[in-house]
């Protein structure tokens, strides 16, 4: 069942569930598209995240109550239609090395794993995009295998280099640009996710899939990687 609450003078928040669930991102992403298509003259933005969809609307054109009713109507219809956008899979090359994986050595010793096993665990999973946020093109990916889950750093780092691959509890992600942050860094990709390339804006969508694969130190260096 859905629950809708006010999120401000021109915004509502629609909850699709109260627990993180792998079936929700696709459902929420599809509904966001349906909403933007059906109510394109009044919807300004729709932000999906894990269990919810935040929608802002043009209060010049529609009141809170009228918008609320329209959304409720659409939600009822949606329950019966399952069609939607095709999920895409992005493959991301990662160099898992201690020179770039700032927390890798600590993690291996805490988890009592050798590097090969760690890489095997992190790359064998197909991850689901649960949310985009924190910064542009930053995709929250889940779920990380229990054997390598680890809490955020108590004190976030001031600067994490672009391309760093991190783990925080059951989630993993790539930092698209240099940024501050508290995730445990285990490797780095050369894949450009910055907005210097404006096409990256749509690189990940909620409901898409991501798979990491391991590259060697030589491959990383040959393609322009810094240590």
């Amino acid at each position, binding site marked *: 069942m859905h629950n809708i*609450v006010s*999120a401000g003078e021109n915004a509502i928040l629609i909850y699709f569930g109260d627990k993180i669930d792998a079936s929700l991102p696709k459902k929420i992403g599809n509904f*966001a598209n349906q909403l933007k298509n059906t109510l394109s003259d009044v919807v*300004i933005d729709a932000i*999906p995240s894990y269990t919810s969809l*935040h929608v802002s609307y043009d209060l010049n054109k529609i009141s809170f109550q009228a918008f609320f009713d329209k959304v409720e109507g659409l939600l009822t219809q949606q329950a019966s239609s399952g069609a939607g956008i095709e999920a895409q899979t992005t493959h991301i090359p990662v160099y898992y090395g201690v020179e770039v994986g700032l927390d890798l050595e600590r993690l291996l010793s805490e988890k009592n794993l050798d590097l090969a096993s760690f890489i095997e665990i992190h790359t064998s999973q197909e991850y689901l995009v649960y949310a985009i946020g924190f910064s*542009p093109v930053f995709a929250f990916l889940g779920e990380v295998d229990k054997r390598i889950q680890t809490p955020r750093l108590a004190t976030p780092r001031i600067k994490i280099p672009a391309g760093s691959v991190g783990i925080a509890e059951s989630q993993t992600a790539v930092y698209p640009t240099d940024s501050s942050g508290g995730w445990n860094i285990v490797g780095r990709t050369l894949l450009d996710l910055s907005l210097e390339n404006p096409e990256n804006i749509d690189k990940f969508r909620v409901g898409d899939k991501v798979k990491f694969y391991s590259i060697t130190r030589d491959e990383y260096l040959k393609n322009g990687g810094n240590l």
Partner: protein
Amino acid sequence: MSFKVIKSSFLSTVQDYGRLNHGEHGMSQSGVMDEHAYTWGNHLLHNDFNDAVVEITFGGLVLEAQIDTFIAVTGADLGFKINNQSVQLWHGLQIHKGDIISWDIPKSGVRAYLSVKGGFDTPVLFDSRSVNLREHIGAKLVKGDVLPCKGFDEATYRFIPPKYVPNYNQDLTIRILPTYQFNEFSINQRDLFFNQNYTITNANDRTGCRLSGAPISIKKERMISEGISYGSVEIATDGLPIILLKDTPSIGGYPKIGTVFSLDLAKLAQRQPNTKLRFKLIDIHEAQKERKKFNEFFEISF
């Protein structure tokens, strides 16, 4: 056809109404912090409501006009001068090639807005000219930068009735809508929230404004991340509110007790640290009515 930066300052950036439709891509709303002063600045010059301006925080900026045109400076009194002469704020002003315009230090308020006839023509990135430093979209102004704009020999400008020029030195009561997890805070905790004077701290920037006061308690400290509205009031783990502003990330995972009415956020943008602040409830119909009236007057439409 431009203004040139002669001396850079602590923080001066080009902003417009904001990047409203890219939250789904993880982008902040961005845009001007004080919609009231910004909107009047463009209105005085007969500009479009979304024309780009320079937002000057705390002063220190010096520009040289390389063109004849018209400007207006609204918002904070940061010791604004043309060729070293103090000039009136909230007025259309003619500028000639070679004029030096400068801002000194804050006398009242925090952020001044420089509007130019026709708006500044800096690059549009993801549907907006607003700079966002955290997202690496654009950069703050530094010496030698050039701010392109058109020249004008003739212009008409409007006047602002004096009653609309705000006093930025008063303590503030800001109106807040009961949103998000409002109902999950107990009645006692809500009473504590609404019946105390908070104080604006130094931790106060384009991302958010942290308040000090008596902490309120929360049932859950962290929750599943969800979309954030401009003006959401997050209760941090220490029980104190942070009012989330234009550069706040698009999603976040702390409980929120409500969302501040946008036109009161404009007032907040001009308050210096140590100002006292109280919250008062507003209902959605009243908020929408007042905002709609503002939008209609200034011809703000999406």
